[in-house]
């Protein structure tokens, strides 16, 4: 199983480089890290760093053409878009990835 995240343009995964730290980005970076540790392959692309990944995928390109950068982030699971324009919760990521939520690492609610 492969997750692909097509991010909004930003220079780091947690968004600490912005004028303010976006709690959602910090949480999402941690959730992706959690997915990886549970054996899910996660690829994360940024528009400013890997534009070719965006340009090569017809569905991503179409989403950008219709909604502009509001379409971002786009999440694809095994080549299919599952979510656009929002950072999904750990619960959603877990259900797409068929990963069991653990008691000791409670799911985020954002």
């Amino acid at each position, binding site marked *: 199983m492969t997750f692909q995240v097509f991010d909004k343009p930003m220079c780091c995964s947690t968004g600490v480089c*912005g004028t303010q730290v976006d709690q959602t980005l910090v*949480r999402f970076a941690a959730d992706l890290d959690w997915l990886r540790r549970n054996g899910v392959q996660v690829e994360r692309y940024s528009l400013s760093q*890997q534009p070719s990944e965006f340009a090569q995928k017809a569905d991503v390109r179409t989403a950008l053409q219709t909604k*502009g*950068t509001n379409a971002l982030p786009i999440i694809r699971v095994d080549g299919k878009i599952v979510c656009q324009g929002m950072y999904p919760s750990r619960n959603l990521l877990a259900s797409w990835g068929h990963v069991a939520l653990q008691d000791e690492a409670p799911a985020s609610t954002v």
Partner: protein
Amino acid sequence: MEVLKNPTRNLFFTGKGGVGKTSLACAVAISLADSGKRVLLVSTDPASNLDEVLGVQLNQKPTEIPSVPRLLAMNIDPEAAARDYREKMVGPYRGILPDAALQSMEEQLSGSCTVEIAAFDEFAKLLGDRQATAEFDHVIFDTAPTGHTLRLLTLPSAWSGFLADNTTGTSCLGPLAGLHAQQQLYQQTVRSLSNPALTTLVLVARADIAAFAEAARTSGELSALGVNNQHLIINGVFRAADLHDPVAQSMQRRADQALAKFPASLASLPRTTVPLAPFGLLGADALRAIAAGRMEESAWSENSVHAADELHLGTLPVLIEELASAGRGVVMTMGKGGVGKTTVAAAVAVALADRGFPVHLSTTDPAAHLAAAVHGTLANLQVSKIDPRAEIAAYSAEVMATAGGNLDEHGRALLAEDLRSPCTEEIAVFRAFAAAVDRGRDGFVVLDTAPTGHTILLLDAALAYHREISRQASQLPTSVQELLPRLRDPNYTRVLIVTLPEATPVHEAAQLQRDLRRAGIEPFGWVINQSLSTLDVHDPVLVSRKQHEAIFLSEVTTLHASRVALIPWQVEPPVGIDALRRMGTLRAEELALQQ
């Protein structure tokens, strides 16, 4: 010159701004070229004046210098390097990705990180890749003012460490795609820097306690990074020829006092001493004369003489009176390092505090010596320093406590890793700067800002942030949101451009003024520091320098500034509250003129 005996392939010039790095780097480059070597001279200073010193328009490719066979020179302009890099990244996707996506890519690639990274990349290509400079016998780097130089030089090891530690693949260094591929080049750069057979670090200082302290600090920091092959040049050492000239005597005494307090850590370094030149150091002939130790009058041409008293030059006390009438606000002293920004800022702060205003005196310059300049306490006057390390620590702690509060151990580790990126410093210092400017609502804030290049980057960052803010304003501190409007408001912020009556400082100050105007900031006035023009000097070197400075006083008043304050060279060092107070107080004869 001692430094010219058995020179290594790479020579790095570093030192506090205004000590003459560029002139000496050029003099050494010309001397080596004249001896038959092929030499490449490189400036990595965003505020470089290599063009002016050599009298040739330079760019990012090595350019031949017509008056010096075998010498080629180039300017690495970080902004231009970033623009090129941006176009290389965005260009291929025009017509493929929608315009909105391209615009947001460009926006993202306009940040200070990209500028820093692009500049460093250019620098590493020259130093890390022998192929790039194979046709030259020597590569000479006229590096930027100290703070920037240190950043540039310490980045290789910091980044090598950062890359080795970074396991998640995404990081703040992302704007340079394929950075991992560059790792080898950067490691080679670090090795070249610390190889004594290849590289010499030339520390340049004036015979001045602050410049020595700065050189000692740089020497220690670079030694710690493994750069141990160092050479010290003491530039502009003045010996009085006329024993009846009190200014000349005082000038020599001051140099002697500084030399007597020479830091022990520098004493073991090989050393070159260069006497104070009676002429301006522009053009190949003047630079050849310096390298050869020729100071006699035939080496330079006589300049036309303008009388300083024909120009309408104000004084510092008059300028302070105008500043005081506002009752509050921000006063910023800006200019090239070494022109006396700190002293002027401290004198203004002392004078305002003496008038009963609450005054906060602060700096964003990592190399500033505010506490040493004030050297004492005064009611109403608070002195502080925006220390990048402390600001980073505070900002990181804040982020970890807020954004990191709900994360598990792995999440916190990931966040901590992103916070170690070079951008964090920029943001932390920026927020502290905005907070200092905010205090101008309730009293006076006097800010002694960092050297020119850094200052421009800081303001540039302010603009970038402003764009960012208008897009997504939410939990930002009010001080940050209000920063740019405040810097542009002439009733809130008054910028004083500080310069010396010499070619390079005046032209750099004019460039700074253009940059400020582009950012919508109109300077309040210019301060010309350390002028001999109103002093009665007889020593031949000083008489020559006094004549020489009249050209630049005239240029400032006619071309650049509507409000000018001239500060005479101080016979007593302007250190401590009393000396600073004297600088800001009208003398009896000036009082008489006022009434």
